[in-house]
Structures are given as C-alpha cells and as structure tokens.
C-alpha cells in the first residue's frame, strides 16, 4: 500500500496535466461562448465529484447509524435491497416513466438507483465499524472542497456569459449554496462538539443534508432556472471532442479526489489513535492518582 500512493500520485499528476492540455488545446472553441466555456472542464467535474463524495458520506452515515443495533442493521440491509429492486423495476413502468424528466433515459435512472445498494454493501464491507465514521468525515470534508470550487468557478463563468456573477433566487445556484452550508455546518459540528453523541448527530445531519443533492441535480429539469440544461443524460448535445475532454477531466479529478481522501482518511485514523492514547494515559494517570489518595492500608485493594 505504501508503494501504491506515490505510483498513484504520478498517474494522477499525468492525468491532470493531460486533462488540462485537452481542455485548453484539443477541445474546440464554443461557437457562442468562445474560450470561456472551457471553465466547464473544471466546474462540472468538480460538481460531479462533490456529489459523489456527498453520496459516499450519506451511505457511510446511514451505515454508521444503523450499525448500533444488529436488528436495525439487518432491517436496513433488506430496505436497501428493496430500494434497488423496486427502483429498477419502477424505472421501466410507463406510469413512472411519465414522471421522469424529458430527455432523461430510464436506464440512466435505473443505474443510479442500483448504485445505492452497490455502494451500501461495498462501503459496509470495506469500512467496518468505526472506520465508517472516519469515511463519513473524510468524504464530507473533501466534498466541501470540491463544492467550494463549484461555487467559485460558477460565478466566474457566469459573469462573462450571463453578465452577472450570481442569479439571486435561482434554484440551482441557491440549492448548491445550501448544500455547501449544510456540509460546512456538519464539519463545524464535528470540529467543535465534544459530546459523546457528536458522531451520531453528525451522521443524522448528513442523512438530511444528502437530501439536498437530488434537489440540486434535478432542479434544472423541474424548475425554470438561469443555469443551462445538462449536457449528459438530459437530451442536450455536445461536440464529441468536448464530451471526451469533459469525461477525461472528470477521471483525472476522480483520481485526485481519491488520493486526497486517502490522505485525509489516514490523517483521521492517526488523530483518533493519538486521542485514544491520550485518553488511556489520562485514565492510567487518574488511576494512579486515585490509588495514591487512598489510605495506605486500602491502596492494595
């Protein structure tokens, strides 16, 4: 594992450099927006990565919440399997297909629904016990970094194209800002609360916070918004070279996010080990002090 990190770092650096080259040189210039549209190659992959990380945080938080009792854990397992099976079948029913926004393929929705049980069982297997909470805090923190980039590159792109930095009241923009605020408050709660219930409270907040992700994603389908329609899975069209560059850029950012998450995960494990060691030391110290304070005749009891 120690050798894998530097190898992955080199691969990630090469992918990021190539993605930058594709974004600035290979991808054609947009007929309407000119070169400024190339912000898409950082803005959109950052948004997708943030959504993925918040989704991982959501799954890890649910796993953490239900892992307290064996019966709840078992019930949750069957609920998740049920969501996967019913969700996939429902996507192909004509009544449900009428509810799916125009341009969105039912197969794409079914694949997304299937990701819920897939991630649930994969995360449960790879991160047993307290590591679930470590994964939750890691994915939330790195997710906030990517979401911050979305909120900064968005207005920088909007200014030359829309003529304004921010469209007040726009559902896509506002819901993204709310999403960012929810996860910032999640991190603040974890940082400053010393209660024994902090991890549980944070996990509950994360579950409710994750409900904002579908709102952000689907807002451009269901509401009138200044934000453009999606270029993938939404019936939009895009030059194949642009699409290729966009996907390459996302792969590069996924590698980068994985490396950052890996580092943050190790940092959190180390932090917890040191905290436990300090707690043990305090307990031992308290035990010695308590022994010392007892009368000599009782100290051996």
């Amino acid at each position, binding site marked *: 594992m120690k050798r894998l990190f530097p190898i992955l770092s080199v691969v990630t650096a090469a992918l990021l450099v190539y993605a930058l080259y594709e974004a600035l040189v290979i991808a054609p210039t947009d007929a309407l927006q*000119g070169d400024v549209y*190339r*912000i898409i190659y950082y803005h959109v992959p950052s948004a997708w990565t943030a959504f993925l990380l918040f989704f991982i945080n959501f799954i890890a938080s649910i796993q953490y919440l239900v892992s307290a009792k064996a019966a709840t854990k078992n019930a949750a397992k069957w609920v998740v399997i049920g969501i996967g099976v019913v969700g996939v079948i429902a996507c192909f029913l004509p009544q449900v297909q009428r509810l799916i926004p125009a341009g969105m393929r039912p197969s794409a929705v079914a694949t997304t629904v299937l990701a819920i049980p897939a991630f649930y069982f994969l995360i449960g297997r790879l991160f047993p016990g307290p590591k679930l909470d470590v994964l939750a805090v890691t994915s939330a923190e790195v997710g906030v970094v990517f979401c911050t980039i979305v909120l*900064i590159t968005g207005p920088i792109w909007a200014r030359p194209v829309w003529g304004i930095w921010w469209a007040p009241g726009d559902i896509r923009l506002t819901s993204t800002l709310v999403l960012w605020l929810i996860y910032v408050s999640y991190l603040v709660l974890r940082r400053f609360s010393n209660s024994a219930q902090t991890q549980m409270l944070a996990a509950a907040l994360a579950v409710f916070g994750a409900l904002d992700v579908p709102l952000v994603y689907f807002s451009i389908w269901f509401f009138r918004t200044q934000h453009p329609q999606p270029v993938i899975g939404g019936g939009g069209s895009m030059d194949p070279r642009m699409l290729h560059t966009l996907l390459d850029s996302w792969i590069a950012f996924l590698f980068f996010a994985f490396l*950052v998450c890996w580092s*943050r995960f190790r940092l959190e494990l*180390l*932090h917890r080990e*040191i905290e436990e060691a300090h707690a043990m*030391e305090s307990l031992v110290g308290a035990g010695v002090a308590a022994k010392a304070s007892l009368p000599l005749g009782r100290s051996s009891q």
Partner: protein
Amino acid sequence: MNAVKFLFAAYIATWVIHGIYLVSLVRRFGRLRQQLKEFGKK
C-alpha cells in the same frame, strides 16, 4: 480576449483552493506526528 481572463481566473482559483487544502492536510499531519513524538518520549 477579456473573457479569457475569466477562464484563467477559474482555473487558478481551482488550484489555489486545492493547494490551500493540501497544505492544511500536510500541516495537520505534521502536528500529529509531533504529538506522536512527544507521546513516545513519555
């Protein structure tokens, strides 16, 4: 030409944010390693 400034601003902002976060991770690692060293001395 003016719009290209916004493109570079967005790219630079992205890497500045990632850079700040990576530096914060390195500093936190350093602090924890220091604590571990002090703990080992005890």
